[in-house]
């Protein structure tokens, strides 16, 4: 059951990397905004 294929990507790891990547990118953008306007 845990081997069910995800949509769009070949495996679940790609989805998880996407979530973590987006989170990391958001933190970096927010850090940049904080410094830019402080």
């Amino acid at each position, binding site marked *: *059951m*845990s081997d*069910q*294929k*995800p*949509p769009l990507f070949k495996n*679940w790891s790609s*989805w*998880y990397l*996407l*979530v*973590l990547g*987006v*989170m990391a990118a*958001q*933190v970096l953008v*927010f*850090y940049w*905004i*904080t410094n*830019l*306007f*402080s």
Partner: protein
Amino acid sequence: MNLLDWTILFGTLISIVLYGTWKTRGAKNIEGYLKGDNTMKWWMIGVSIMATQASAVTFLSTPGQAMEDGMRFLQFYFGLPLAMVIISVTMVPIYYRLKVYTAYEYLETRFDLKTRTLAAGLFLMLRGLSAGITLFAPAIVLSTILGWNIFVTTALIGLFVIIYTVSGGTKAVSLTQRTQMTIIMGGMILAGAMAYRLLPSHISFGDTLQIAGELGKLNIVTTDFSLSDRFNIWSGLLASTFLFLSYFGTDQSQVSRYLGGKSLTESRMGLIFNGLLKIPMQFMILFIGVLVFVFYLFNQPPVFHNQPLKNSVAKTVYADTLKNLEEKYSGIYQQKQKAVTNLVTGIQQDNQALVEESKLNYYHAKKREDSIRTKVKKTISAALPAAKTQDRDYMFLNFVLSYLPHGIIGLLLAVMFSAAMSSMASELNALASTTTVDIYKRSFKQEASPLHYLRASRFFTIMWALIAMAFAMLANQAENLIQFVNIVGSLFYGTILGIFLVAFYLKSVKSNAVFIAALVGEASVLLCYFFYYDEIAFLYYNIIGCVLVVATALILQLFTPREEIKKAPK
């Protein structure tokens, strides 16, 4: 509020209740009532998860939080995507394999009945309290506007939720949440656009950001570490991850959302959906608060944001004192506005010296303004000793009622109520399913017809709604609603997560060890809360509780005579 606002408000709420009740009428068994016959698609699960988490407290308190403390509260959500990934990888497949109704059923398979009952009991305590606060938040709104007693408004909102939750169960909860989230997101985007549109025409969007940044409101990421600091990147990435692991992985109000999925894939995608969209959504709500903050730099804010309470004081012997303080406050505002005007000039002319000088003048005026506000609160306390003088939760609402056009006021109030109803419905549904499955069916009446359990679930939904209404009265004592919700969660989530982590990853640990460890962990967290509240920020209770349960369970198992190994699920 005029007729248009009332029509939009009650038209929206009554439509949601009728739609949810009618579309999901005729639930015939507990499977359909508690799991919605496993028909939910990933986007429905995602929306339902977000709607469950975002209560009215989110929309009432969060903009006020940004107005006072800036946007650093956003860091609280940094651990959420990480938690979504961990839950998708580890917990969801196990729940699916075991075909459980509740997360706590798994604990009996892994340990024993007493551990399952303990975890379910902790959940019921935590969620029962939270449901009360969830209900209280919109009750303040209505009582503020109508001047009604809080008891009456609490009962009215509770009744709305009871109707469709009791009738349609989890399917009604999910169905109505779709409509509610559409109204919520649309309303909040409109509020943000209106707040920006109400700014003076010579203030560009870039200026708005510069002003907010210079006055410390765009402090989204703060990197200084301190155990007593509630919101910084470290507490967000570490402590919040534990909190969200427990909330989404072991709290039945969320577990029931994705257990209603059509398949494991749909459930996982629902969690991923939440992991991608939650931070942007919170950013938007906080940013609306920042826009309102900037708006109040150009328009005099009220000295106290809970206007009806202030008006009540104006009818007492303290009326003159209050009037004098308000006059002083107006005088200080004139000085503050001069500083703001210079700040804008400095920003637009790129004159750093003027910017710095204006900021000094602004903070000087702000300090005097805060001092007046403190005196106003003391006057209110003296006039009405039982009154709550914390007005942060009224800031956004007061802005909506004072400055937004009719129609939009009604819509935004519908947003608050929809949010409250959506999360409360999930909570009641989860409380009822845990009480039915983990307590009633397991320990009191094991052999009964599906119809009997369906009736029991409905009865427990009503029972928990009544208990939530009672707790709602206690929430009146809370300092700030959104923080109170998170504090209550943090008191129990660490321990619950610890039990589940031991269950998932430490196969050598047996039931007695984890049961005693859970009691030790919970006692320690309560000790921190009662004796070290100022020294240790509440978010760290999640780590303390969880680590203590895991470590104590491991140590106890070492000193426990070998018991017969119960086969753990693979």
